[in-house]
């Protein structure tokens, strides 16, 4: 178990180093930021001065080493566009994205598992075929279209919900939250649905197919033959056996929710990291892009680690096999 953990941590570090190299590579290959930052009115001395200040005059390897050292300390340099430290900008934007991701993640998980179990148990009913058909829509419609449709129906036509922004936020410590105001909560609804719908339908379809598989197993038959209640059979005996693949996919999806909230944030003008990233791309604001890339890869690597640890928590057979191996 410990050996496994150490091995996984080592692998994680390798992944981060590779992503770091890619992020760093952007500085080298995507345009020259100095021209953008100084504009037309510039002297050769200004350029040399800025290059030195940004560390662009040193060798590639030194730059990479410096980049890694700073990145490890959470220092990603200064935004070319805003002229402020990237870490500050991201810390400012992170709460909006994380709150949105948390709400849609929880929503996707709760409804995905619930509906998956229901459609598996009542396999041939009208309800489950309706849900399955609708889920096809969720899987196949692109996110931005769902967002625009929701805005059109619920904001423009019915005028029930706001179409953009975070509503009022409250500052708690260094964290701005939309959970504490009514307008903040209302503003969360549409983006959360838009962001979570795909993940929800995906989780639902996986839970359903896993459940159908598990319900055919002998131990479920034996549980029935012992007269256990359907509820216990479905949720205690069957659901737990579906969780390993479900957690694998869910983990990756949680990563994607945060990483790819870009589209949803753009559609709803949600002031989070996704929107920050899109703007950074438009202005070739490489330190912001690099920091975002690193952040997302840290996120994916840690989610994968958590998923691996959850396997052990769920399936007692794994710990034994590890010990034997």
């Amino acid at each position, binding site marked *: 178990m410990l050996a496994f953990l150490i091995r996984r941590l080592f692998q994680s570090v390798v992944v981060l180093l590779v992503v770091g190299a890619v992020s760093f590579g952007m500085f080298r290959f995507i345009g020259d930021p100095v021209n953008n930052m100084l504009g037309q009115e510039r002297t050769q001395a200004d350029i040399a001065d800025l290059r030195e200040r940004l560390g662009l005059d040193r060798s590639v390897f030194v730059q990479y080493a410096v980049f890694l050292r700073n990145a490890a300390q959470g220092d990603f340099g200064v935004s070319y566009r805003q002229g402020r430290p990237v870490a500050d900008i991201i810390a400012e934007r992170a709460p909006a994205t994380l709150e949105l991701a948390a709400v849609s993640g929880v929503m996707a998980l709760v409804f995905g598992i619930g509906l998956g179990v229901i459609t598996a148990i009542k396999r041939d009913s009208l309800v489950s075929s309706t849900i399955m058909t609708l889920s096809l829509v969720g899987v196949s419609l692109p996110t931005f279209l769902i967002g625009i449709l929701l805005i059109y129906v619920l904001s423009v036509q019915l005028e029930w919900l706001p179409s953009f922004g975070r509503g009022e936020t409250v500052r708690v410590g260094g964290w701005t939250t939309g959970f504490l105001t009514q307008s903040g909560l209302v503003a969360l609804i549409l983006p959360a649905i838009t962001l979570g719908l795909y993940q929800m339908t995906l989780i639902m379809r996986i839970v359903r197919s896993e459940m159908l598989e598990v319900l055919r197993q*002998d131990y479920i038959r034996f549980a029935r*033959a012992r007269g256990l209640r359907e509820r216990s059979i479905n949720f205690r*005996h069957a659901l737990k056996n579906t969780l390993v693949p479900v957690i694998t996919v869910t983990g990756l999806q949680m990563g994607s929710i945060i990483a790819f909230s870009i589209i949803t944030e753009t559609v709803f003008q949600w002031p989070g990291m996704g929107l920050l990233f899109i703007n950074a791309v438009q202005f070739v604001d490489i330190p912001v892009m690099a920091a975002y890339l690193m952040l997302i890869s840290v996120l994916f690597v840690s989610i994968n680690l958590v998923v691996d640890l959850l396997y052990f928590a769920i399936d007692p057979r794994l710990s034994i096999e590890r010990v034997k191996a």
Partner: protein
Amino acid sequence: MTPPPVLSVRNLVVAIPSRAGISRPVNGISYDIAPGEILGVVGESGAGKSMAGNAIIGLLDRPAHIASGEVWLNGNRIDNLPPDDLRRIRGRQIGMVFQDPLTSLNPLLQIGDQLTETIREHLPMSAAQARDRAVAALEEVGIPAAAERLNSYPHEFSGGMRQRVVIALALCAEPSLVIADEPTTALDVSVQAQIIALLRRLCRDRGTAVMLVTHDMGVIAEAADRVAVMYAGRLAELGPVRSVIHAPRHPYADGLMGAMPSLSIGQRRLRQIPGAMPRPSRIPPGCAFNPRCPRAADKCRVDPPPTLADDPQGRAACWFPMEHPA
């Protein structure tokens, strides 16, 4: 006076409707099992043995269903009960043991949890009482250090031990009938005998009736009191195990016995029954066995076979049963 039977099956028919028509994998079987008695049910794969067991305990998979006939358990009719009443009977009055102990236990739940959940479902017990009972149940089936093993997962047991756990689970609420569906098929030969002996001892001690479904005549010979030979959904022969083995009256039962190897020296060649059992959708008219039967006459190809009661010895469903000199 014989005690009233634990289980009475009367003209049980299981039907599976399909586009090609209705097939009847179990087609009118009747038998009783007395308290403490072990009835062996034998036949080839697809003869309807397991289907009959599933029908009795109410676990047929749709679209299979009981089309007609009656199942009586301890004097109560159970084939027409609503699902939730039937669920209460399962585990409490009818226990079931499945073929493969490796897949019968939930791999993610400790066996103690699986036992106490079953016990508390059927008996009004506190968690602590159920735990004591679970320990007792494991001790009874010969699991050493039972109290410590409660927290073990199924994969921490060997195949034979797991089948003991399965038996403990099937018997933990003291049912009056146990349906054992090929309980030894997946086990080592050396473990098979232990499991059969265990099942027989537990049921004798408690007066539990057993329906032992198997295709292994050796198991039947060792464990059963009476044996029912099934062919294509019907009973071909039903009688005391010694008589059926040594003096079978139905040509199919005779064929089965001829195909059974023995360990005696100077063994003759095993006989085999030509052909294969028909699928439930392709049962020939008359007696289902007639195309393969060495004694078949024209009557057998036209008229359905007589009932067991028509046989002077009350054993075989055959127009021309075999006579054996006494």
